[in-house]
């Protein structure tokens, strides 16, 4: 007999016990764990959704703020650019003005320096010319020249006329001291006599004379009497020449001061 009924009953019982045990120890815990996990996942998904919504909201808000910020920044940038441009223009103008002023000043100073140099050169040239002339004449001065000078002087005395002659005559008469005759070299007695005679003849009086030597005359003879003077000397020529050149320079400078820098340049050329 293949079927043993006791075994059948025992196995049925065994199976039912196994069903209960498996329910108790396998299916319930496993299903419970799965349910728990599903709940948990659902909760996490819901949380994630909520977080995503929140994130989206924040993202939108942030984007909005960003756009606002960009707008403000652009506006500020525009304003700042305008201000900077204005400031740049102002500073450039100022710098240009300053540069112009400096340039004008420099040009002026240059012109002045050139003028000074020109004047110095002129003066130096003049002094050199005079020094050369003086030296040449001093070297040439000698007895023959003294004689010639005496002649010229006497001739000039004789040629005196009018007011100067009357003034000098008056001075000679009223003078208490003797009149002074100054010469660059010591005059020989003949020359002295000639000059004495010429003075006496010219003023028709016996004039007391005193002869002095004055090397600064370079070459020449002077008659001093009570503040008046009759003279012929190279120094006088030179002085009058100097005076003439100085006047010329002064005349030249006056129109230069009034002229423009361009005309300065032209003059300097």
């Amino acid at each position, binding site marked *: 007999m293949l079927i*043993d009924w*006791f075994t059948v009953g025992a*196995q*049925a019982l065994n199976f039912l*016990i*196994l069903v209960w045990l498996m329910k108790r120890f396998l299916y319930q815990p496993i299903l419970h764990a799965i349910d728990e996990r599903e709940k948990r996942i659902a909760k996490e998904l819901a949380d994630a959704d909520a977080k995503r919504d929140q994130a989206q909201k924040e993202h939108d808000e942030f984007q909005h703020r960003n756009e606002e910020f960009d707008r403000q920044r652009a506006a500020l940038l525009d304003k700042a650019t305008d201000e900077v441009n204005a400031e740049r223009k102002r500073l450039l103008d100022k710098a240009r003005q300053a540069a112009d002023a400096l340039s004008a000043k420099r040009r002026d100073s240059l012109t002045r320096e050139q003028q000074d140099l020109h004047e110095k050169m002129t003066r130096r040239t003049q002094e050199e010319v005079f020094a050369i002339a003086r030296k040449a004449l001093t070297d040439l001065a000698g007895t023959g020249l003294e004689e010639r000078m005496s002649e010229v002087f006497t001739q000039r005395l004789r040629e005196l006329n009018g007011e100067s002659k009357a003034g000098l005559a008056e001075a000679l008469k009223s003078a208490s001291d003797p009149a002074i005759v100054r010469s660059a070299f010591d005059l020989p007695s003949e020359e002295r006599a000639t000059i004495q005679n010429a003075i006496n003849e010219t003023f028709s009086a016996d004039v007391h004379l005193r002869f002095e030597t004055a090397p600064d005359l370079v070459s020449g003879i002077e008659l001093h009497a009570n503040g008046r003077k009759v003279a012929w000397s190279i120094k006088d020529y030179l002085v009058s020449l100097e005076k003439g050149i100085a006047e010329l320079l002064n005349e030249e400078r006056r129109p230069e001061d009034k002229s423009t820098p361009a005309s300065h340049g032209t003059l300097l050329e």
Partner: protein
Amino acid sequence: MRLSPDQIIFWQHGFFKLNATIVFTWGLIVFLVVGSMLITRKLTSEHTRSRWQNLLEIIVTGIQQQIKEVGLRNPAKYLGFLGTLFLFVAAASLCTVIPGYEPPTGSLSTTAALALCVLIAVPMFGIEDQGWSGYLKSYIEPTFIMLPFNLISEVSRTLALAVRLFGNMMSGAMIIGILLSITPFIFPVVMTLLGLLTGMVQAYIFTILAAVYIAAATGTRKPKTIAAT
């Protein structure tokens, strides 16, 4: 020749006896229950879980899915009965790799016991679902004339369940036994592997047929024809 482990009797006292079928069944019960306890003791609902928990979850949800596919609306309700049927039969087959083991399902007593459990469980689930009248009415569907045929069908399918499982399991054990005496090397291993496969198939068929009978009884749907071997 021994056809059933029922014939190996360890202890007997009149009607009561302790044969290999019962002992190996107890062994399987202990194996299944202790294994489940060990694994479910450390269950977690976290995202990361142990491999054993994963395995059990796959098995349980797989059975649930199969029950659902048969057409039972609330698989958790039938999981205890059908799932245990499957696990017991499958475990009984898989353990044939252990030397000296005799599958309890190779005994007609065991398969008959399981078939009887199905025979009782089907009307119980049917009455629970449809009530007495609703369930009994299903025996006279579509006409009153069908009542005897329905009753015969009820008994014959239970018999078929029992004999099918017994025949397959017993034949597997028999073939291995015969082969061991003819070609002791290599070939029995192949046949053992084949036996494991047929064992799993039989566990599946037994469970699915039971599910189909329950589904028919609960009125969810008409039983679908399954070519069972």
